[in-house]
């Protein structure tokens, strides 16, 4: 049974195609690094795979089920951690986790136990009863991570999960992701932070202008040319090699 399968996935907004036919198959649990420039279609892909966007062209199968026909069952078995810390800020972390836990159908005592334990591990236990509108971005991101993982999903979609986290939390989250992979989960990881993607991903998919332009392990991508780091590969593939020229021009303007 395939974990994820995308066949000729297209999406248009007002006649403009932001996804122009993505084909992708994931058969075994692994960490997928999904990277691309701004506006490449990363978030749109994730929103389709998580059932947020229902209208698209092509076929999407998640955990062997067609997302158009089995969205609810799929949502029960996946987790999603969005980029921009979208949560109900007037609630406390405990209230918010209780809310999302119930929507995932978890038992009350399980929600309570897991919420406390996970908040404690993220050093948020002393703020469990405080409203989140005074929280920093990193603190909110931690609550989002817990809410997306608490029901122990089989596939986890992460859209910039390290955004706003402090250095210790970044290390902790990276370790959690590695452990999740070891426990047989699939992680679909979208990020701009290349070195993290390079280190944790089993497979890297680069999209640009709504199309997959590279797909493979870091080693296989590197073997296509002498490009060194993922950042260099990304720059070469997305056609943004003029960074040095731009930077030089920038300095010239500053000096003028």
């Amino acid at each position, binding site marked *: 049974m395939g974990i994820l399968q995308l066949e000729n996935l297209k999406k248009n*907004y*007002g006649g403009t195609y932001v996804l122009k036919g993505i084909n992708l198959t994931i058969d075994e649990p692994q960490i997928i690094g999904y990277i691309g420039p701004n*506006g490449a279609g990363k978030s749109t892909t994730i929103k389709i795979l998580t059932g947020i966007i229902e209208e698209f062209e092509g076929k999407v199968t998640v955990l062997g089920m067609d997302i158009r026909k089995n969205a*609810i069952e799929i949502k029960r078995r996946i987790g999603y951690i969005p980029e921009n810390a979208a949560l*109900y800020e007037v609630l406390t972390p405990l*209230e918010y986790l209780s809310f999302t836990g119930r*929507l995932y159908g978890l038992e009350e005592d399980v929600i309570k136990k897991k919420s406390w334990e996970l908040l404690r591990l993220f050093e948020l236990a002393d703020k469990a009863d405080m409203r989140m509108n005074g929280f920093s971005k990193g603190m909110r991101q931690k609550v989002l991570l817990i809410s997306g993982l608490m029901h122990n999903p089989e596939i986890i979609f992460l859209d910039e999960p390290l955004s706003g986290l402090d250095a210790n939390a970044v290390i902790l989250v990276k370790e959690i992701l590695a452990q999740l992979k070891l426990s047989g989960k699939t992680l679909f990881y979208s990020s701009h932070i290349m070195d993290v993607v390079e280190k944790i991903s089993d497979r890297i998919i680069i999209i640009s202008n709504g199309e997959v332009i590279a797909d493979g392990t870091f080693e296989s991508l590197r073997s296509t040319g002498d490009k060194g780091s993922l950042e260099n590969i990304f720059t070469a593939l997305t056609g943004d090699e003029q960074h040095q020229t731009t930077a030089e021009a920038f300095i010239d303007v500053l000096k003028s």
Partner: protein
Amino acid sequence: MENWLLKLVHLFDFFFKKQGIDLPRMYTIVQTKLVMDKRRVFLNWRQGAQSENSNHLRIVLAMYVFISLFISVAIYSEFPFLFSMMLFHAYVIFMMAMVLITDFSSVVLDTTDNQIILPKPVDGKTLFMARQVHILLYLLLFTTAMTFIPLISIGIKFGLLTALVSLVTVFLCVLLAVFATYYFYLLALRFSSEKRVKDIITWFQIVLTVFFAIGYQLILRFIDLDDISGSFELSWYSWLLPPVWMSYTVEAVHLLNFDSIHLLMILLAFCVPVLLYWVLTKYLSPRFATTLSSLNTEHNAKPPSSSIPGRSGWAEKLSPFFTREPIGKAGFENTWKITSRDKSFKLHFYPSLAYIFVFIFIFVFNAGKDVEASWNILSTTNKFLWFIYLPMFTVANGILFVTFNENFAASWIYHSTPLKKPGQIILGSWLALLIKYFFPVYFLMFLISVYIWGWQVADDFVFGLANDYLCYLILGYLNKQYLPFSRQPSSRQQAGRFLLALMQMVIVGVMVLLHLLVIKQPSLFYIVLAAILIICWLLEKYIANLSWNKISV
């Protein structure tokens, strides 16, 4: 409160089960939304009264109960039956539409759900029903707060049957208000983006705040109670007014009068809301949901027109005339632009501008009493002084309001840049407020005064302008000096408002006395004017040279 509301919803479980609704998830969503309502800051009421941990919803509901007491008094008074009923129904429709368009906009237009609930295993039917139940509970709460006491009053004064019919017409009024609101949103969404819709709603809120600020001052003065006669004449436009349909419906039952006019009114009262609601649920609501779900996507974003490179606005055009130093220019332009875009500033400041016209109505035109007599002798009085000094009395509030901003943390920029004299920023900011808000109003006052008193008031307006500016600078000087948009808007910090109001009264009063002295001794005109201008110049210098240790943080 949410517990008994949820118990009420439980009465309809059989219906939800029949519809195939996932009950546990629906209740989870509704319960959470009710908790959030309790904590939401309501826009129709001053935010200062709503502290972090207070139950905002309960406070707002209590305010609506308080307002409903006035309607109850009207019902109890000797007004004719139809007049009382029209007042009551007009109040219900207006207040409900206002609640829906202003405060409930954050619920109806909330796209956070798309990110939070849509990825969870909740089917569309359950989510839709949860939203509907939430909206209905919200309407129920507000309708109860607005109409409970007036309905009891109707029951006591006109009998149980009349009260029961009024309950039905209240329900019909709520339907009309819901329809009006949805239609308002749909029109707004049809012609613009989500951001634009939010701008339109902001303006609507500002207009309403102004309306409430001045409305209660004016309306009671306009109504001549002796004029309300026992009979009500139906005009052609009466047939277009929902409160008239509703009032005739209640009257038909109250008087047991079912003549052709009453029957037609009953027909309109029932058929129009039902028809409109049917159109709403059948055609408009699904389109509304679709439009809403397509919003908030990065691909819909269009650059605002003001971001067109190279285009300079009023701020850039005017700043060179009023400020010399680049830092002063920065303060001027920044204040000009932010005050145009900051909703909170507009909500607080614009109503105080509207007060200028209220005070003129009260003090110059004798609050609407014997207007003709007041008008006939006006040109022989010195009442043009109100036109000269009232604008300053209100515009000076801006000095305080401009220091607050939701994004107060962004004021780090002042501290991180090599600013030697932050006073220049403050002076630039004050000048922007003066030019933007005071000058246009002052010019308008000048034109009105010339019309009433003739060109001989021109001298007084020149003298008044200098006097007003001195007054403005003194008020700014006597207050603690804060950098613009650098303070957190909270009730505690806005406590300085009362003190400012007191100082304003005293200082403006002294300026008016000075002006009266010049009127009595015209020979002093140029000497006093020169003295005022010199003091203004010195004060300007002092403020522009303020150093960091004089600035409050």
